[in-house]
């Protein structure tokens, strides 16, 4: 086997955006930096696609896994790896960024170099989270992904940006510090590694010797950190504020990818490490998630602000993912996997449309809008498709995921599925309400001058819609990517 590969895919996925981001800081001209961002993110996408081609770890292990000494004497190595779930989420990250850059190409930012630099750094951090195979490395990237995002939101956001994003930061920071305590505790109970008494490597963590009581409280330390990030009711209140205040392209990253960090982390670090605690607390977590779904859906019905509207609908969807994870069923988990991807695609699409509307009309108030369908039919069609995908209409990508997640939830308990199912109805209510108020009816003064969308946006939305339908009809390729990961986790749970 060729071991002399000088760089592997996970490294490329991290270092390339990082480097590109640092280069972006140097570029003074706004247009150049924009194009550079698009170009580099497209290259990252290329890398990601190639990596999926070589996804088969049994054949190309050396391409997808890398480990070099880092904090060796602590038992932590800089270990990266791409398993199915990693492939899926790195692919999502790689797909999302070029789309975001292209879609928001028209928006001009003060000190664009810093903006794009930070965006690319965020990408690098996200890639790190999704590829880390060492708990300490994971924690590093977990925090590092948030810092540039914080700066992005606080620097280029809306009026109340400083407060809102600081709340977001402190909230997540608190969570991750709690997790840090858990990480250390876990580490202290791992077996020895080559150079140290303990080890942070994933396998060692999975094999940590813990008493059930310890697992119980450690579970919560980890879960709260992830729950805040996802966010799960009642840890969600930072989200609407942040989404509302952040610049739209950052919001896309936050909602499209960053919330997946939480979901991802639960699957990667909670399920295999604390299987007993997961079984013990599954009712609480699923209960919270289900309450959150209904709660957020109800609030979404009453939202008048488009951004907050999307935020609450996202909370409802994430709630389902969280609940499905804790069903510990293959169907549920597989559903979560595919839904992570689908939700990312759909919500980015939603934001693009919301951004367009806000840019053109200057308002996000649902009650002030109306009749856009008449003025901008193409935009309307895109939005309707994306919104319907968002509420999981069959043959769109989200249906497959939601179907499987509900199915998993049902297997777990009928009543959870039944109550959670109400959110399907509520989702229809709020989405159709929004469509009706924003797009249908007669155009008014605000929406009178709305223009059709530009080529860039049309391109991006078309790509999104094609993906929505493609994976709605042929989801199997995605399952093939994540199948092994899910089965591995399921075996660990038993």
């Amino acid at each position: 086997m060729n071991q002399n590969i000088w760089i592997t895919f996970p490294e490329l996925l991290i270092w390339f955006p990082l480097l590109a981001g640092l280069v972006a800081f140097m570029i003074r001209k706004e247009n150049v930096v924009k194009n550079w961002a698009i170009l580099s993110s497209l290259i990252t996408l290329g890398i990601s696609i190639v990596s999926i081609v070589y996804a088969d770890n049994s054949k190309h292990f050396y391409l997808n896994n890398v480990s070099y000494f880092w904090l060796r004497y602590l038992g932590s190595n800089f270990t990266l790896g791409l398993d199915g779930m990693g492939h899926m989420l790195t692919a999502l990250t790689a797909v999302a960024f070029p789309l975001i850059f292209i879609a928001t190409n028209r928006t001009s930012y003060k000190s664009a170099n810093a903006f794009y630099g930070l965006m690319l750094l965020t990408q690098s951090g996200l890639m790190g989270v999704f590829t880390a195979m060492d708990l300490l490395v994971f924690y590093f990237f977990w925090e590092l992904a948030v810092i540039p995002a914080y700066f992005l939101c606080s620097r280029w956001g809306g009026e109340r940006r400083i407060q809102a994003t600081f709340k977001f930061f402190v909230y997540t920071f608190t969570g991750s510090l709690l997790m840090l305590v858990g990480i250390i505790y876990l580490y202290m109970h791992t077996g020895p590694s080559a150079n140290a008494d303990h080890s942070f490597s994933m396998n060692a963590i999975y094999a940590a010797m813990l008493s059930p009581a310890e697992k119980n409280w450690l579970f919560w330390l980890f879960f709260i950190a992830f729950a805040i990030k996802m966010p799960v009711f009642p840890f969600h209140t930072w989200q609407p504020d942040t989404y509302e205040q952040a610049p739209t392209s950052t919001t896309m990253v936050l909602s499209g990818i960053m919330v997946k960090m939480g979901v991802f982390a639960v699957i990667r670090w909670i399920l295999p490490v604390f299987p007993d605690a997961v079984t013990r607390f599954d009712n609480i977590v699923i209960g919270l998630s289900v309450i959150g779904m209904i709660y957020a859906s109800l609030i979404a019905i009453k939202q008048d602000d488009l951004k907050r509207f999307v935020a609450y609908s996202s909370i409802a969807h994430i709630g389902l993912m969280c609940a499905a994870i804790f069903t510990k069923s293959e169907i549920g988990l597989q559903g979560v996997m595919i839904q992570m991807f689908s939700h990312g695609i759909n919500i980015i699409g939603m934001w693009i449309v919301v951004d367009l509307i806000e840019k053109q009309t200057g308002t996000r108030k649902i009650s002030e809008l109306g009749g856009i369908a008449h003025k901008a039919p193409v935009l309307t069609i895109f939005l309707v498709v994306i919104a319907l995908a968002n509420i999981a209409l069959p043959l769109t990508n989200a249906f497959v995921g939601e179907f499987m997640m509900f199915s998993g939830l049902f297997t777990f308990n009928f009543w959870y599925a039944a109550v959670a199912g109400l959110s399907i109805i509520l989702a229809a209510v709020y989405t159709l309400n929004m469509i009706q108020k924003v797009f249908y009816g007669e155009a008014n003064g605000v929406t009178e001058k709305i223009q059709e969308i530009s080529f860039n946006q049309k391109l991006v939305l078309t790509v999104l819609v094609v993906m929505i339908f493609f994976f709605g009809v042929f989801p199997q390729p995605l399952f093939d990517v994540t199948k092994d990961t899910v089965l591995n986790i399921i075996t660990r749970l038993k």
Partner: protein
Amino acid sequence: MGNIFQLVWLIPVLPLLGFLINGLGRKQVSKTMAGIIGSGTVLGSFVISLLVFMQLNSGNVPAAPFHYFDFINITALKIGFDFQIDPLSAVFLLIITGVGFLIHVYSTAYMHDEEPKDFAKYFAYLNLFVFSMLLLVMGANFVIMFIGWEGVGLCSYLLIGFWFKNNNYNIAAKKAFIMNRIGDLGFLLAVFWLISKLGTADYQTVFANVSTLTVTDITGITMLLFVGAMGKSAQIPLYTWLPDAMAGPTPVSALIHAATMVTAGIYMIARSNILYTMAPVTQGVVAIVGLSTAILAATIALKQNDIKKVLAYSTVSQLGYMFLALGVGAYTGAVFHVMTHAFFKALLFLGAGSVIHAMSGEQDIRNMGGLKKYMSITHITFLLACLAIAGMPPFSGFFSKDEILAAAFAKNPLLWGVGVAGAIMTAFYMFRLYAMTFLGKFRGTHEQEHHLHESPKAITIPLIILAILSVIGGLVGIPEVFMHGGHRLEAFLAPVFAQSNALTEKHHLSHATEYMLMGVSVAAALAALVFAWSKFSKYQKVEKEETGLGKVLANKWYVDELYDTIIVKPVLALAKYFNNIFEKKGIDGFVNGVGKAVNYGSRQIRLLQSGQVGIYVLMMVLGMLLFFIIQLFL
């Protein structure tokens, strides 16, 4: 010509292609092209369906479903994108594509005033509608069925709200979609239940392993499936969307009411008949709900003045009959009634559309009258349809309705009695409608009168075809009493219901009883018919408020208001409470409260730092004391 089954996939794909062409190229295609593409693709599907039907009829039944690709294929669950062709789906395919094609043709004329791109959009939606329905019918498992199931819901939403500038239409569309989603939830839960118990959603496997399920499981699954059917097929309590769905263009109503959508529930229960046969409790519920719906809708129809509303409630009522049939185990009867109903209800709607077209959009029958002399083809076809729906022999409705009533009688004479009452009301309101529209004197404005005209060919030809079908359609199911082996449909469908039939012993009514039943129901309906004819042919418009029961009926038993009060308003109030108070003051209040507490604590604790050395030293000494006490004495 090779095996026609190899082309089965074309049946749904053709309308899908039509949808894509018309939808994506709606700015490019001309109206004519859009019409041809829209109708042509459905015609193509119809032709293939017909060939498939003929293959099946010749006894060449495919053993396994056609597998195209894996939809979901993981260890725990395999769901293929499979189509199943058997007699049941073949019958439905014919109805959908056949009646659907006629409606398409009809639409080319009816929608001619629309802008070209809206016209193309309309046909795209119609094609998508047909596509979804075909998917629903052809799917070889519950998941594919569900895809179509939601798809038709979506299409109904799009078409009902086709004229999206009018907010009332949008609200009606939304209502349709949401009501449907309530039903869909039930359907979904049933599918999950099946998957969790049997690990699959394929019909074949499910039906083969049905005996491994417990009674609770089967009852639960069938109940939930029935909830789905309630939504889609407009049964109590989820029927209120259907009359509102009249907001869409009239051909759409025809499509929804006759060929697609509402029959989905019937199809689904007929498809899973073995489950229902094994769940007598559910069957009872289905029968009772069906019958109640039939009666309730009929009573409402008595007092409606909107031509389409009357027809809408009549659909609800007829659907009730079909569920009654399903409930009493007369699956063939239900399918039969679906078929005949498709003919005459499509005809009624299209006829109504023709009338509305002629009346320049007027839908209130109090403003019509005497149209007989202006539009003869419409008039005659409409009359035939009315006779058919009223169950007059030998029109198609007679056979199917009679079969249902007979089956109901065999189960319980009370069911039959109520059913006949409904039939009487049906005859009454249909002929009230007919008489007020076509007989008597014209009551509209002069301008309207000036414009009155017979509709163009594209409208009348489908009417004529449907009229013929309405008249002779019943002949495929001539009951045993009239002719031995006359029930061709039953024979054709027998393989589908074989499993159920094996489980139920047939109550064979004596010929005498059957004749008696027929006689009673026909006589009663005829009496109502004559009464309505005579009463309303000389109808004069009078402005008077309805009172008493009449007012209740005219207001549809206030069901919408009831739902509004007990469901919509509390939910919205709860949402408002969450949004305005609980979220802000409760959860976020707590989160911010932590921040505020830190701030408050900071402000208080910094007062300790008083700047006075004396106090600092005192604090130190107190700390020292504390430490001594802890270390030395504790």
